[in-house]
């Protein structure tokens, strides 16, 4: 069953061109939503101003090839493996949701445009499943409302929940439609997908663009010596540090030992 292209089952009632038009409409809705979101939040102005301020403070400007390598590092760390999450549960949930979504969207487009099944259909089901598992994990156990603020999982608010709920709706109804062949499930799947794309302006879909850019900007700022206006933590055993900060050798010795992981010893779970 999971090797069958689910879109083939509705091909009699809906022509391929209609489905292609729907996919294109969803892409347009997302692009327009992201652009409106950027304009509303003045994201470009914010990042431009920050870049300008940091380049003024730069001590050792870096070359474009070094910037490219930092961009690659941002893509491999922050984008592909969500390394910014220090909480491993959140990181895993985010990875499952992100990769599930990407695989689901790409395979949906391939199956609609080419009519292919087989491996694409298997990947489509796995993508939806991964999206659903990561999403429900977040919904019931990880999100701040439930985990920290003591709210019940069924208390909803539009702005905070429309993104995750439409994602969950899309993946859940897609799987139910595929397994039951029900038109009701198909209609709910289409509805959830439309809500997801149409509410981009109010939801958090835009974070996939500004979060990686913020991480890249931070990396460049550190490489150039501006360090986001943060202080340097030098090697404590160097003679230069001993001369500049005499408190260090006096109280900690000339070669201070490792003092342990400190606050990172346990995850933040006491609230």
């Amino acid at each position, binding site marked *: 069953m999971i090797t069958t292209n689910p879109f083939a089952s509705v091909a009699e009632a809906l022509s391929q061109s209609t489905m292609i038009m729907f996919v294109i409409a969803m892409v347009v809705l997302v692009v327009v939503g992201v652009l409106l979101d950027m304009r509303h939040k003045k994201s470009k102005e914010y990042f431009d101003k920050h870049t300008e301020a940091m380049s003024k403070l730069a001590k050792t400007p870096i070359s474009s090839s070094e910037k490219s390598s930092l961009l690659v590092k941002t893509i491999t760390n922050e984008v592909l493996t969500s390394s910014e*999450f*220090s909480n491993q549960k959140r990181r895993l949930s985010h990875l499952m949701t992100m990769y599930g979504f990407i695989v689901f969207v790409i395979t949906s487009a391939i199956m609609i445009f080419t009519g292919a099944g087989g491996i694409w259909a298997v990947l489509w089901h796995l993508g939806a499943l991964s999206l659903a598992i990561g999403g429900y994990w977040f919904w019931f156990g990880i999100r701040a409302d439930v985990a*920290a603020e003591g*709210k019940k999982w069924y208390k909803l608010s539009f702005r905070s929940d429309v993104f995750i709920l439409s994602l969950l709706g899309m993946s859940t109804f897609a799987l139910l439609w595929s397994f039951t062949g029900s038109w009701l499930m198909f209609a709910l799947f289409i509805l959830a997908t439309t809500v997801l794309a149409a509410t981009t302006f109010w939801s958090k879909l835009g974070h996939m663009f500004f979060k990686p850019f913020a991480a890249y900007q931070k990396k460049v700022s550190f490489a150039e010596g501006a360090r986001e206006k*943060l202080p340097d933590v030098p090697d404590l055993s160097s003679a230069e540090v001993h001369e500049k900060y005499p408190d*260090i050798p006096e109280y*900690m010795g000339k070669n201070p030992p490792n*003092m*342990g*992981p400190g606050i990172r010893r346990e995850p933040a779970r006491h609230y």
Partner: protein
Amino acid sequence: MPTFVYMTRCDGCGECVDICPSDIMHIDTVTRRAYNIEPNMCWECYSCVKACPHNAIDVRGYADFAPLGHSVRVRRDEEKGVIAWRIMFRNGKKDWELLAPITTKPWGTGIPNLKEAAEPDDSMRNSHLLYNEPKYIRLDDGGLHTLESNGLTMKEGVYY
């Protein structure tokens, strides 16, 4: 000055919520990023600023050590056992960096072992004094406590 959070840097991990002694750092349920729910109640202890793994929280310093528009940022490195500060004026010309040992005991060594402490009796339970209140801060028992009256001496330096 109370703390504030840079929303683009925060990832909503909750370290600041965990450590805040006033319980005023919360995660916003809409944006799922940290924020100070009651700036008036902030002690300015900088705990959240130092605990944030993304350096997403800042505090504006007072005008007596830096004029308006400056930046005061801090990094706490527990493994090295130091705390570093950087104070920068608005025009960027004054740029100080400071580095000092963390003048506390190593993590985990200063936690009182309360389960081994003696259980309070009824008189202690009904007393206005706090359980296990250090005798050195009590004035109703032997007058003002001093190092000398308690046979203690001041040690020089910082002990780890």
